[in-house]
């Protein structure tokens, strides 16, 4: 398992830009928002938590089609399916690798981008905490979407259509934590909900992903 994780991480870093792309996308979305809604700082600080969450979510989504597609093309997935490692575990490791290369950098970059959007000082800690808890769920749900559409040619758009509705609960609770934190309300309830969703999804989704991938590898 660690070998698989190390391999995926190495590939992500070496494969020519795949590593930083999500981060760059996150940056550019955040920069474009003030152009769209205007530069008033009080408006920006009000919508900052939601924008940052949405940007992180989209950046996560964009990198999903690389998650399984390359391994599908060169046959690595067939090898993984026949290896003694259960497919559920292999997909969990792949989701973890995706989170380390995409989710974690987003979490670390979010406070810096928060400055651009004039996020209130009270919000930074909650924003980072909510992203830290929420992005693993995004990676795991995204792995399911990738497993469903891996056999479809040019399945990127289809995958967005399938994955985005599944992101709704995570986004709602995650953005709610950040918003409440930024406005000084008590963010503990949505935080617990978010943690619950992440834990549940990490526990259960690999089985659904593996089931979908097995059908595709048949």
């Amino acid at each position, binding site marked *: 398992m660690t070998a698989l994780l190390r391999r995926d991480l190495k590939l992500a870093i070496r494969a020519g830009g795949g590593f930083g792309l999500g981060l760059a996308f996150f940056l550019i979305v955040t920069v474009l928002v003030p152009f769209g809604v205007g530069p008033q700082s009080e408006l920006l600080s009000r919508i900052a938590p939601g924008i940052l969450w949405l940007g992180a979510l989209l950046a996560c989504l964009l990198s999903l089609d690389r998650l399984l597609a390359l391994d599908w093309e060169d046959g690595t997935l067939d090898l993984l399916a026949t290896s003694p490692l259960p497919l559920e575990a292999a997909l969990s490791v792949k989701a973890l690798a995706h989170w380390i290369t995409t989710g974690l950098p987003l979490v670390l970059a979010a406070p810096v981008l928060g400055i651009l959007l004039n996020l209130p000082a009270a919000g930074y800690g909650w924003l980072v905490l909510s992203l830290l808890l929420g992005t693993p769920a995004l990676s795991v749900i995204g792995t*399911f979407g990738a497993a*469903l*559409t891996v*056999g*479809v040619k040019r*399945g990127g758009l*289809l995958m967005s*259509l*399938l994955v*985005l*509705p*599944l992101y*709704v*609960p995570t986004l*709602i*609770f995650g953005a*709610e934590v950040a918003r*409440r934190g930024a406005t000084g309300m008590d963010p503990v*309830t*949505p935080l617990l*909900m978010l943690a619950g*969703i992440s834990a549940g999804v990490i526990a259960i*989704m690999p089985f*659904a992903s593996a*089931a*979908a991938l097995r*059908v*595709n590898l*048949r």
Partner: protein
Amino acid sequence: MSMTEDTATPKRPSGFWSYANPVKFLGLSERVLPAVWALAAISLVVGLIWGFFFTPNADKFESTVKIIYLHVPSAMMAINVWVMMLVTSLIWLIRRHHVSALAAKAAAPVGVVMTLIALCTGAIWGQPMWGTWWAWDPRLTSFLILFLFYLGYIALWEAIEDPDTAADLTSVLCLVGSVFAVLSRYAVNFWNQGLHQGASLSLDKEENVADVFYFPLLVCIAGFVLLFLALVLYRTGTEIRLRRTRALQAREARL
């Protein structure tokens, strides 16, 4: 393609499961379909005319209340169709009955239209009553999310060529989607309460409905259920025949 009669099986299933045999299913559905169509038409005509022309206007709502006869049944069906798809998907995954998977496929477009009718009639009702076509009320929002789930489900059916793979993947999506749809429902509830405490927009319709409105509404609901049943039986039959045609064509091409 195992859509042809399975005569070699030693033990023939009886009762409900025997209709997993496409031939038996087609035989039954063709016998009952005319009756279902007729009953659906009768109850829809009776219910809608009764509701539109022979009920009084409600005090607050005036004549806009009449849209309830389309809105409530379609909204109920939008959810029930998804539940039916969930059940048939489970049957497909567990017992591998092709009819079941095809019924789920046949039901999805009906469900998406029901959701659309519910959303549109809701918007038409909301414009004079709430003063807006759309509000991010929890109920409205969850229906919009349900609509997106239907779209994704249908898109996945369309995208995959091999019918059995498509049936498997859409069934898995339906199971996962059901969990997330329920999760979204509660998340949305929470989310909107967080915005404005105790929204005055969502007045509970069921409590306000008096008997004058209730009985035609029941007839309309029965009409929608029957209409759905007729459409699904009809569409499932079409799907079965389509598969059979493809199987025959494939056989001919091989000879």
